[in-house]
């Protein structure tokens, strides 16, 4: 019977262990040429903010879409809205506005980059580049762009990327239009003793009946004005906002982006089944036509 060569096996195992220790711990594969999808979440947020700021400056939606697709979000719209809510909560309103504007632009029927075709088999890098020098957009018509992205294909040297990712391909450019003003589609008195007294609830929907986060709401009364935003209570809804009205004050409310004006808003007096009175609330629903 042949003797098992324990000494050889042990030597091999030690060599294997040392090799693994060296390659995993001492000198792991150096990370270079990473894709944005592999970034840490907070850096992805930075990347997304930069995309939204760039979109706000140029109005180039296909380019913004191509960039967003690099981050590998399951739903860019939801991710943008969610990030906007976090920024609103931390008081970063400008950035939040830009993210919401991009989310709205993506949502308003211009989802063009759905055919991001993988080119992994030929390791081809595609760089998007615009063909024309355009002046900065006028502030009041930010979406008047007609440039067409051009594809420039370059054969890249074969490198080991950390995460392989389909290269997005820009497609035809549509000219988005500025959305129509929001319409006040419902105004209801709410007599619910479980809600805070005088609660004014506002719901904002876009034309596709999806709730809009980050919508600025302006409420005014005789001696003052305040602003608040949808999306600060995502557990209720992305397009939800509320405000507590004081008794005997009449308010007027509108959306900052343009909407019908809800005027003469006064907290109604309600009664419980047992006959006690309490201050009720109002629920307003805005929708983009």
């Amino acid at each position, binding site marked *: 019977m042949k003797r098992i060569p324990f000494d050889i096996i042990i030597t091999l195992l030690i060599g294997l262990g040392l090799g693994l220790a060296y390659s995993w711990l001492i000198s792991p594969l150096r990370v270079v040429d990473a894709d944005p999808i592999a970034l840490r979440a907070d850096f992805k947020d930075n990347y997304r903010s930069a995309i939204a700021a760039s979109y706000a400056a140029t109005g180039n939606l296909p380019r913004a879409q191509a960039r967003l697709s690099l981050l590998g979000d399951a739903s860019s719209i939801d991710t943008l809205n969610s990030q906007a809510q976090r920024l609103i909560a931390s008081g970063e309103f400008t950035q939040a506005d830009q993210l919401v504007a991009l989310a709205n632009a993506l949502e308003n029927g211009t989802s063009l980059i759905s055919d991001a075709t993988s080119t992994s088999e030929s390791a081809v890098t595609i760089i998007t580049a615009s063909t024309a020098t355009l002046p900065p957009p006028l502030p009041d018509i930010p979406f008047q762009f007609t440039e067409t992205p051009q594809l420039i294909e*370059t054969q890249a040297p074969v490198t080991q990327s950390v995460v392989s990712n389909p290269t997005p391909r820009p497609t035809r450019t549509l000219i988005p239009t500025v959305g129509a003003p929001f319409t006040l589609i419902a105004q209801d008195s709410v007599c619910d003793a479980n809600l805070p007294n005088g609660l004014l609830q506002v719901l904002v929907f876009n034309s596709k009946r999806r709730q809009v986060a980050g919508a600025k709401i302006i409420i005014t009364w005789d001696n003052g004005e305040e602003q608040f935003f949808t999306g600060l209570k995502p557990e209720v809804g992305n397009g939800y906002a509320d405000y507590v009205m004081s008794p005997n004050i009449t308010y007027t409310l509108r959306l900052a982006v343009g909407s019908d004006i809800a005027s003469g808003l006064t907290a109604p007096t309600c009664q419980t089944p047992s006959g006690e009175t309490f201050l009720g609330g109002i629920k307003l629903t805005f929708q983009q036509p």
Partner: protein
Amino acid sequence: MGLTYGWVIDPVDFFDLTPDTLRADYKADYVLMVAETYRTEQDPGLAARRLAIFGSQSPSAIASQGLEYARANGFADSDIALIQELVTALQAWSGIQ
């Protein structure tokens, strides 16, 4: 065998990476984004802060690298001009506000 397994067959999984590990074309595109925004905002401090995610290099050095890449890889002239404008602004910007 251990090295082959650790480096080729099952290398350390990388996630939660920092932006300085991004491929050069992604870095250049990020610089272009900042340049596009700078054209409208004209705020070099804000542009520098956006570029700071790449680490300890100076903002103008980061932008210059983006410009180099853009020139070498056939970016559109309009994009190169935007990045050039950003580089110039950052070189002139003292960083003291």
